[in-house]
């Protein structure tokens, strides 16, 4: 009989199921994975080194581009870390706006995550539905920040501007007739908050639709149940966080256990898995979307009632208003100094970690008192999750490796930084 040897398969870097530029070297025994060695860094942009050359404010847009499927939430730990170093208190309205957009981003991320995971394992339709809802979410971001994806909206001391009073509307053109436009504009007749509220009312129904497509789907369950099981103990050892940790049955959520911003005033539940397999993690993400929807509702209700400032009045940190800047010499100097020299952050070090859609996303900042960070370290959840690829994929079929990549919810901007 011929001598049968293991062979090595090169998966990626340009493979549609690799969720970006992942080169995965798989050592196979027949169809079974013996060893998985992810080669990362193909999207390494040295964000941390670049931040050392930029003033504190100039780095904010880089943060959006890390995990480009959950944009605004990335900025959150960075501005939070700066605020802690500066010791400034953020206006309550800004905190609510940030929390609301964190949760909107969480839904955005999970929609993409579940949609593309379904696409990877063969359920083509799912992604069409999730991208339909994603469209509404990027519209919210566009109305608020001016950019559909990379908002650069959170600033040290608050957010860039208040929520818009009017939602932009569609106009009739050669592709959209008056009837279509009227239907599209129905939810957009009021303010942004009206549009978000309308979305939160519709969204649980959409979640039900997704569940009818996937939760009891025989093929979906065959592909996910008992795949990539991680015990609670291993999940802790491997540094898992977020849905990956909760899927293994560990009840840990930074929003509940070490609450930041206004999370302690909000009512929401933490879904926890039982078996620690891909299916449980899918269920956790599904429930997280419903819980995020609940949080958004509460934030909308609060924001309607409580107008107020959205950024601190300290002009060493936040710019003065345009109007004041034009009229007052002192404000002009503040504005000039802020956008040429930048903020001076007292020497010290701080780690700010938040519950990102993918897990714990943390920013570790070391300042030596200059107008630029001395060192910024970004702790991304996807990096740690991907490092467990070998352990999770070992002994599974090659097709399951795709499921496992999907369940990790990795994005290469985030892994490579």
């Amino acid at each position, binding site marked *: 009989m011929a001598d049968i040897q293991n062979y090595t398969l090169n998966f990626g870097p340009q493979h549609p199921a690799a969720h970006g530029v992942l080169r995965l070297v798989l050592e196979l025994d027949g169809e079974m994975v013996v060893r998985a060695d992810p080669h*990362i860094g193909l999207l390494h942009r*040295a964000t941390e080194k670049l931040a*050392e050359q930029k003033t504190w404010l100039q780095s904010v847009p880089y943060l959006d581009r890390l995990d480009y499927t959950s944009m605004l939430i990335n900025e959150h730990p960075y501005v939070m870390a700066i605020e802690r170093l500066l010791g400034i208190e953020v206006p309550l309205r800004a905190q609510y706006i940030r929390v609301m957009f964190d949760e909107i981003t969480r839904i955005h991320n999970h929609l993409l995550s579940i949609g593309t995971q379904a696409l990877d394992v063969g359920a083509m339709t799912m992604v069409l539905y999730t991208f339909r809802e994603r469209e509404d979410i990027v519209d919210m971001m566009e109305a608020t920040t001016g950019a559909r994806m990379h908002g650069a909206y959170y600033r040290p001391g608050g957010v860039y501007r208040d929520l818009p009073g009017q939602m932009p509307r569609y106009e009739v053109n050669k592709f959209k007739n008056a009837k279509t436009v009227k239907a599209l504009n129905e939810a957009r007749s009021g303010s942004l908050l009206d549009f978000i509220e309308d979305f939160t009312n519709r969204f649980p129904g959409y979640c039900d639709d997704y569940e009818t497509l996937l939760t009891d789907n025989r093929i979906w369950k065959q592909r996910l149940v008992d795949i990539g099981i991680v015990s609670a103990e291993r999940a802790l050892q491997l540094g898992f966080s977020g849905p990956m940790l909760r899927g293994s049955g560990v009840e840990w959520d930074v929003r509940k256990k070490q609450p930041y911003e206004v999370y302690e005033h909000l009512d929401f539940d933490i879904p926890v898995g039982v078996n620690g397999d891909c299916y449980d993690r899918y269920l956790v993400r599904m429930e997280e979307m419903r819980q995020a929807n609940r949080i958004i509702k509460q934030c909308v209700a609060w924001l309607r009632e409580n107008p107020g400032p959205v950024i601190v009045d300290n002009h060493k940190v936040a710019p003065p208003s345009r109007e004041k800047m034009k009229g007052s010499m002192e404000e002009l100097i503040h504005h000039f100094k802020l956008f040429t020299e930048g903020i001076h952050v007292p*020497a*010290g*070090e701080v780690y700010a970690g938040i519950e990102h859609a993918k897990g714990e996303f943390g920013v570790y900042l070391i300042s*030596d*008192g200059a107008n630029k960070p001395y*060192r910024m370290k970004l702790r991304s959840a996807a990096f*740690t999750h991907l490092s467990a690829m070998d352990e999770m994929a070992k002994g599974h079929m090659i097709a399951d490796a795709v499921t496992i990549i999907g369940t990790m919810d990795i994005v290469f901007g985030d892994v490579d930084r």
Partner: protein
Amino acid sequence: MSAKLEKLCQNLHSALGERVGSITIALGEVTLVVAAADYLEVAKTLRDHPDLRFEQLIDLCGVDYAAYGKVTATLAVEPAEVPTEVRRFAAVSHLLSISHNWRLRLRVFAADNDFPVVASLTSIWNSANWFEREAFDLFGIMFEGHADLRRILTDYGFIGHPFRKDFPISGYVEMRYDAEQKRVIYQPVTIEPREVTPRIIREENYGASGRG
């Protein structure tokens, strides 16, 4: 200072005893600095001691302190001229205890600036694996006892450690397609690093009201 952090400090003192290098509490966070020789033992105690129980290593990163407090962003002197009493490289890890719900920052300095070595934590927390590979790749810190210390983020065949303060932001080589050779080639960089906003450290209370 909250009571919880105070308790953590007490527990650290009682559990580690002599091995505590220094403990500082700042901005609601506890930082523990230990000597490189005690590093592995301390990490083991931190994980297993019932009063500490740091089950998770959240993050580990390298830091190059060579230019700390200096005006230039990159190192102005040659690496060999960094005074020997300045310890350049440190590995900083962030630990999390799920059962006690507290965090700790653990810092260890490598003794030698030219060949920085610290112990590897992979046997204590498996999540240290890639973090240490990253710190090795970007800072050149050697982790003793790491089973698979390869480069992780930089290109295959990359030379140097890009996050060191003496490594220019533009790097040394650039890559382009050469039409004559019909392949991608490496060549020395053609761009020069430029600083748009200078790095400035102001004295305390600079610009405070009531001062000139």
